[in-house]
């Protein structure tokens, strides 16, 4: 099936070349970072995780979000999702590849990465994260490939594959839960030390992931003649709205606990995120515009998706989903990780601003993910068209 990636319209090749350019820039930036060190990033002794780990966290959600296609189709027998479950699986593959690349980019000694397996440490959550992420990657490759092969041959998928499909559903939940546990088990960081992190991560993933699938479907409809069907899209919109409202609700609960209890440690990070935190006569507010962007775009997107127009008009639907994806990226891909470091354990405030080199690597990895997803979707759609012709 791989041969399908080698035949395409000029637009396909231009798009891949465009992504390839950013991948090359990212690679060059990474070589610099590899040689000089992470001092080329904006990270510091006080803000020891930055853009890489926040992108990783967000993209684990992108991978887990695909389960919102599998679950209705395989558990509730919602037939309309039959054509797009493969898109969810392939999106998950690309997202996990990006996650692993972001982790590698963040390591001080990337050549020693396998030490995580050579010296397994069951007390460390990172050990479990490595296991579930890799397991989820390979299970998605397996399921995606076997199902697509069966479809191409116009036969039913083999029975044994259902074991792995059903296994992938709890595994999708687990990747984001374990990722949340990386944060919520750290005693010294007030902002992260809350049991709602895992549910919040899942809610935002189940909104942002399917939103991206809808955007992908709308693009595929225009450029590849692949129509996922209105009924499937509308069902996805319903799922997105519920998950998005849950995420906003969870954020609200966090704000309640912080502000009603009036405990300084619970409030500091929220103060920093939404209003600016005053410390030693200086107001630190780097993230304030991003977080209000999240609030406005988030509620705006939910409102747009609730309108009947979103269920009929592709443009309205696309804008709503795009706004929602962007909103939740601002929240989880920017705010969540960085705010955890405010204030520092020594009660100081240190702000983080990514460097150009760091942004270059980040864009390079995003471009790689889009490249992988493009190639995988090309295969899936190619098989789809081949079957239609028969």
């Amino acid at each position, binding site marked *: 099936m791989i041969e399908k990636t080698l035949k395409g319209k000029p637009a396909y090749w231009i798009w891949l070349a465009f992504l390839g350019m950013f991948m090359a820039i990212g690679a060059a930036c990474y070589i610099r970072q590899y040689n000089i060190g*992470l*001092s080329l990033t904006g990270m510091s002794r006080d803000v020891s995780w930055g853009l890489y780990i926040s992108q990783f966290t967000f993209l684990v959600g992108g991978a887990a979000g695909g389960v919102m296609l599998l679950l209705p189709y395989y558990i509730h027998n919602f037939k309309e999702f039959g054509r797009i479950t493969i898109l969810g699986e392939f999106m998950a593959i690309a997202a996990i590849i990006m996650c692993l690349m972001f982790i590698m980019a963040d390591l001080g000694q990337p050549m020693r990465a396998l030490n995580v397996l050579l010296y397994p440490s069951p007390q*460390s959550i990172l050990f479990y994260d490595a296991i579930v992420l890799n397991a989820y990657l390979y299970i998605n490759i397996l399921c995606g490939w076997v199902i697509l092969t069966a479809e191409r041959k116009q036969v039913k998928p083999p029975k044994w594959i259902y074991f792995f499909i059903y296994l992938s559903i709890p595994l999708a939940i687990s990747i984001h839960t374990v990722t949340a546990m990386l944060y919520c088990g750290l*005693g010294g*960081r007030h902002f992260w030390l809350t049991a709602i992190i895992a549910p919040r991560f899942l809610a935002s993933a189940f909104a942002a992931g399917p939103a991206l699938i809808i955007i992908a479907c709308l693009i595929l409809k225009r450029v590849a003649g692949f129509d996922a069907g209105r009924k499937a899209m509308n069902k996805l919109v319903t799922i997105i709205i519920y998950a998005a409202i849950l995420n906003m609700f969870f954020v609200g609960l966090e704000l309640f606990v912080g502000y009603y209890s009036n405990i300084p440690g619970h409030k500091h990070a929220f103060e920093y995120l939404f209003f600016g935190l005053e410390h030693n006569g200086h107001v630190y507010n780097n993230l304030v515009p991003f977080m209000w962007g999240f609030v406005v775009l988030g509620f705006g997107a939910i409102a747009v998706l609730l309108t009947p127009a979103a269920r009929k008009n592709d443009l309205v639907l696309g804008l709503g989903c795009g706004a929602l994806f962007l909103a939740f990226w601002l929240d989880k891909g920017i705010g969540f990780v960085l705010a955890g470091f405010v204030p520092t354990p020594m009660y100081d405030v240190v702000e983080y601003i990514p460097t150009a080199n760091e942004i270059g690597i980040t864009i390079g990895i995003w471009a790689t993910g889009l490249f992988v997803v493009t190639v995988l979707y090309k295969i899936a759609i190619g098989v789809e068209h081949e079957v239609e012709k028969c």
Partner: protein
Amino acid sequence: MDKQRRKFLKIAGASVVAGLGVPVIMKLSGEPAHAAGGNAAAAKDTLTKEASKAVRLGMVIDMRIFTDKPELLDDAISSCINAHNVPQFPDKKNEIKWLWKAPFKNVFPYHSSSYASKKIGKVDFAVLCNHCDEPPCVRACPTQATFRAESNGIIAMDMHRCIGCRFCMAACPYGARSFNYQDPRPYITKYNNEFPTRMKGVVEKCNFCAERLALGQEPACVEACQGTGAIIFGDLNDPGSELRAVLDKEFTIQRKPTLGTKPSVFYIV
């Protein structure tokens, strides 16, 4: 005054087990320091059998003495820097700190400092790794590159195994850990050939001078304050130690005790 302490340090140093070939992670053996005493009260005092046997190194920092002689802390810090080839980066972003100073409100953020005496506001406190009995950094490390030496309770680092994920830095509630964002060697002011330098991409922190203890010496900061009683070092599990005598006599506080990390560094304010 410190006859007993010297004795302990010598015993401990003489029975060193060569660790993994890296001086940084040498271990002290766990001498049953007070088992021979037959002190029933002391035996009751310790919660578990293991705790009564193992050495748990700890420290009392007497800020009354540092308040009177602030230059003493500078001496201690520079002897630490020289002993461990700690690089001196000009910028705050890349800095590496093992033993450093900070005001009370930063060191004890959960203790009230409203209407604090002016004296407290001006004093610089000595800050270092707490060598916790329940270390969150050790729990977080995915490769056991940072670990608790069972024989003496030191939280040690294997810089050859560290992958530089910085999970330990996020986990440490005391800001005790530093990451080598770039090659530290050009920023070492005075080379000490007795201690290894580090490479870029690994985490490091105070090691309670495990390498000096192995030779029967006191930690560098303790030695720098010799005779003043500003830093008292010893075995927390030995009821007969000078350290325990000071802890019995004085009111001491630990940093962020509510987190359950059980710091081994105590402060007399």
